[in-house]
């Protein structure tokens, strides 16, 4: 397969990004929303790696994506603690059930 180049990777990253944002906007389930976040972060990662690979810019992009993977893990840890605590009180992780604060 010739012709798989930077553009294709950017398109894939764009699709990942948009799917992630749509997922965050529509999912009710806290874990579902979290998966949307992971999609968006990975969209950015694909961008970094593609730029790094196809434009001979050195390894900076790949290093960033490694950092981001670690960071996403740290955030997931906090997120799961928050979701667990939410579940303990609300007996659900449907984020729409948190609706006390308005005004």
């Amino acid at each position, binding site marked *: 397969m010739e012709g798989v180049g930077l553009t294709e990777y950017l398109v894939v*990253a764009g699709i990942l*990004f948009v799917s*992630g*944002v749509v997922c*965050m906007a529509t999912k009710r389930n*806290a874990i579902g*929303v*979290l998966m949307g*976040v992971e999609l*968006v*972060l990975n*969209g*950015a990662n694909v*961008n*970094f790696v593609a*730029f*790094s690979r196809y*434009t001979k*810019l*050195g390894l*900076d*992009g790949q*290093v*960033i994506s490694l*950092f*981001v993977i670690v*960071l996403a893990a*740290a*955030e997931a840890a*906090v*997120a799961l*603690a*928050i*979701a667990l*605590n*939410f579940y303990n*009180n*609300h007996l659900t992780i449907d*984020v729409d059930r*948190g*609706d*006390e*604060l*308005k*005004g």
Partner: protein
Amino acid sequence: MTETVMLVLPQTVLGLLACLFILGASFGSIPRGSWNSWALLGLVAAGCTLHFLSDAVPLGGTTAVAVDSLSRGFQWGCLIIGALFVLMARESQAKSETAAEFHALVLLVICGMMLVSAANELILLFLGLELVSIPTYVLLYLDRRDYAAQEATTKYFLLSILSAALLLYGFAFVYGLTGTTHLSVARGILTDAYAVAPGLPPTGGSVLGVVALVLIFAGLGFKVAAVPFHFYAPDVYQGTTPFNAGLLAVAPKAAGFVAMIRVLSETMVGFEVPAERVAIILAMITMTGGNVLALLQTNVRRLLAYSSIAHAGYMLIGIAVGFWEAWNPQRSLGGETGLPGGISATLFYLFVYSLASAGLFAVLIYLPRPGRQIEHIDDLTGLGRTQPLLAIAAALFLFSMAGIPPLPGFWGKLSLFMGALNVRSAPDTLHYGFLALAIVGAINAAIGAAYYLRLVAIMFLQDPISVPQPSGGKPAFAAVLLAAALSLALSWPKPLLSYVNGIGERPGVVAAGDPDPPVYTTKVNKHRTEVGSP
């Protein structure tokens, strides 16, 4: 390598100390009340390293860390405001079983803010911003665990993480555009690619750059709570403790603005025109949205949340002017290249705003009776009689936020608005976009005064309903007094203004009717002599 480590020594001190706190908490022998003193000592130690490093390190160059007057001034600001916050929490954390973790997280937030201001590298900048965000999620979760608090934590977490992802996606495009993660190298590359003669409009850059710009603005817009990315703020402030609300009103906002200056104003050469437009629009809707919605609020923390949104709008004026001055150095009255007047005004306002916010939230921490928070604005009724000193301090902060002379908030607003008025589209013609911006700003300052003065009126003109039984403890009261003293001292704003502006005199901006106006100064960029490709 060692040099880079030396440059972040203050941050390293704070980070290591935070790790020690969390480790030390596993050993029960350390009394809970002592963590606060250790945290204060840690801040002092970080201040000492910052002070002694000041002359010890070479400036500029292509290290991952930028040590310049921006980062140094911002870091001092972080330490001062941080110390106020640690002081406020002293009493409430004295018996808390999570005191060690709490103080560790606060230190990490301060460390993250300092890292962001010193970042000269996209990775470091992003990690610094996350070091502000992630401890904040945990802080929100630690102190209050009722329904409302969980909702607040969840909302803040999900939106903040989305903003981080947007920001990262924008960074990816900056990287693709310039081929480097190093900000001053990126600036050099963009200057080579898009530079035109100074004073001419930039050629406009490329689509990739504009996409990056918009994404970064969106990501940082969440951090500074700019409309339309603001909607989490009121709910989160209401649903958490006054301490956390105060920290949220200051830390992410300061980090967001300094990141904006680092990655947009100082890096995106050639994209000033679209950036300027985005910033003008954001500033206008943020000021107006924040102020108008604040008028409708009856919950104190919600009101302060909307007021903090409005203040983000004022600070965006300075950012917008900064973009204009970046490609128009000779047309702005500020003259010279370098850190432009608009951005200096933003930095000044940021400090003044942080001080007033910290003070107000310290009042809210000190005041409530045990087990009950100040919720409705009527809880403050008659405070002028029951707690005169506290009420005077609170009024001082409110007046400063409303921009009443001679308090520092007035000088901040004045320099922001004058910056916008000084913009010229041709040597003798006002720039209509910026003129409109200044007018909208002035109208908003009037709207803002309405709800600040309503609070003052409630405190001083109404009879007290009940006698308050303050439970926040003497340290919180001391924090209020310290913030008030600093605010009063800044009513003579010349030292700080000339610090943020650099060196040189700037005649022509004189407030009418002021007998002894501060001298506005231009700024000469001394620290960035070696910007460009390595």
